């Protein structure tokens, strides 16, 4: 992932205004639209929750609050298609999402960034992935002892640096 491709409006959570209570950028329709997209992007499967899970969705919505105009623009695009996204068949939904991706790449970048960083930071998701469902610090992780015998062929070969003669 090219880090410079990260949208500037995806600042960390604690620097964000609380979208739901203070930021009118994402109204009810926009929030419903984003939640719907979350469910379409990452559905539930086995022990993995769907990304439209309320805790994950709220985090994503908060992250997208400063990208309100991008969200409204994307919602406008979908509304212009004159279809009910939720009522579409799966293949029609895929077609519409593909059209949205092509027409509104900036929105898609911001949406995917916030969706993914919200979903894959959720403790339940991390637990299913085998990551103990917690922050790296303070617990850290135990590393296995290294078998330095593996280096035997490297040492057997001897010095490889270039000698510099005065």
């Amino acid at each position, binding site marked *: *992932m*090219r*880090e*410079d491709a*990260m949208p*500037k409006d*995806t*600042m*960390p*959570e604690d*620097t964000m205004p609380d979208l739901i209570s203070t930021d009118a950028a994402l109204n009810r329709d926009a929030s419903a639209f984003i939640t719907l997209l979350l469910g*379409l*992007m*990452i*559905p539930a*499967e*086995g022990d*993995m929750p769907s990304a439209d899970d309320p805790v994950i969705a709220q985090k994503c919505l908060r*992250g997208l609050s400063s990208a309100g105009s991008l969200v409204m623009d994307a919602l406008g695009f979908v509304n212009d298609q004159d279809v009910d996204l939720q009522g579409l068949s*799966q293949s029609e*939904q*895929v077609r519409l999402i593909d059209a949205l991706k092509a027409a509104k790449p900036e929105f898609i970048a911001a949406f*995917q*960034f916030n969706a*993914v*960083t919200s*979903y*894959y*930071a*959720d403790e339940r*998701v*991390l637990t299913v*992935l*085998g*990551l103990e469902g917690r*922050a*790296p*610090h*303070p*617990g*850290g*992780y135990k*590393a*296995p002892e*290294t*078998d*330095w015998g*593996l*280096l035997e*062929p*490297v*040492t057997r*070969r*001897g*010095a*490889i*640096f*270039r*000698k*510099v003669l005065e």
Partner: protein
Amino acid sequence: MPNESVDVVIVGAGASGAAIAWSLVDTKMKILCLEQGDWVNPADYPTTGTDWEAKGWGDFSFSPNTRGHETDYPINEDDSPINIANFNGVGGSTILYAAHFPRFHPSDFKVKSLDGVGDDWPIDYETLEPYYAENDRMMGVAALAGDPAYPPKDAVLPPVPIGKLGEILGRGLNDLGWHWWPSDSAIATQPYDGRDQCANLGPCVTGCSQGAKASTDITYWPHAIRAGLELRTRCRVKEITHDENDMATGVVYFDENGDEQFQPAEVVIMACNGVGTPRILLNSKSSRFPNGIANDSGLVGKNLMFHPYASIQGVFEERLDGHIGPGGCCIWSQEFYETDQSRGHLRGYTFEITRGRGAAATALGGLGSGKVPWGAGHHQAYQSLFDKTAGMVAICEDLPEEHNCVTLDPVLVDSDGIPAPKINYTLSDNSKKMLDHAVARGEEMLRAAGAVDVTSDSPLGVAGWHLMGTARMGTDPAKSVVNEWGRSHDVKNLFVVDGSIFVTSAGVNPTSTIQALSLYIADNMKKRLANLFD
């Protein structure tokens, strides 16, 4: 009230500023360091939360243009395929560095004599060797003695664990008969000098929450401050002033309230890195120095070197436990380090094997490449990548070229109105060939280790984290900015100690050499105190 004069003012509290401050403090001179940023509280580092990846791309991004903090300065990168990475605060860019800590090779100081390109350094490996060793002790470097790619050197701390991932790639390298070794790493693998033992958190490049990584805010600075040095934060230097005898008189800076101050000093030491230092030198214009102070050679800001990077990543069929261990420090291979003309390029590169990607980065990478879809199939595709991706970066030697440069942007300014740096940089043919070679060899290596799918990104656009060459060292004042011990040829009480003074870049991360040079310059100053300005 005017500021009281000091013997030495150091500008910049990063890797090099910290090292020279600590070394000079035993002279009992009055030393002041001015740093534009703040102290960082380790509790604020991203790895204290599960959302560490998002924070690492936001407030702790290594791109100053993305962070956009008041303590950062903007950089115009429009004319460079490689973007600048840094951190501005006590510790400088070591706050975010990976702590991969190789030294230069002896051949790196003799590039012109050996290969007919670049220039020779005015000093050699043997001269720097005691300072490398001293710096290893101060930073607490973990290593395994006996690396055949280097002359013998001691290890201060036991090597970092290479983990399952390192062993798999090590076996692949053995199958090819190629060199590899655990990376020298500025990471405390045992409790060291008040630092905690590394708990293998993973992402060192968002800052080390537990203080095991050797950033200079927790290595050199506490020692220097305890010995009496003053470090003043939120002080951004605008220019260096001088008198009619071409001697620096001090620096003008903006304090934390944005008020302009003058700090008189007998000696000025610049340690703002390979972009920050030429920026301030170029901004210090006068009738005597119309093109910036210490710039009679016209070389301030020229010969900017990055290390062009290629990233080569492979997907394996088994899980690799890639989240365990310091992210950028595992093993290295210097099989292709020394020049071999048959490869089609001169000079060479290091392979730095990196550990796994985070959970969110895996998803973003997969969505970006189309390997992870939306909807049905998302989880299955994701699981085929997560913790199964491993690889390396190739750190290619960049050769000095005058047209690659830092200048002052005519429009863009920082929050104090100081002109921002502008970067002009193009990749040379030699670099392009070297990158291609590295991608091909990297793929060969990953496949030998068992990767089933290999992708690459070259040149890596985000990788402008090694900043070198913009105030080069040399004995000829017409061809260099500072002499062989870091003193400006034109202004005899002005020194530069950061990566700006590099003559060539070598094919390794630079910080070990930057700090060794800084300690070496400090020693030269101490030896000459009686006639420092002659």
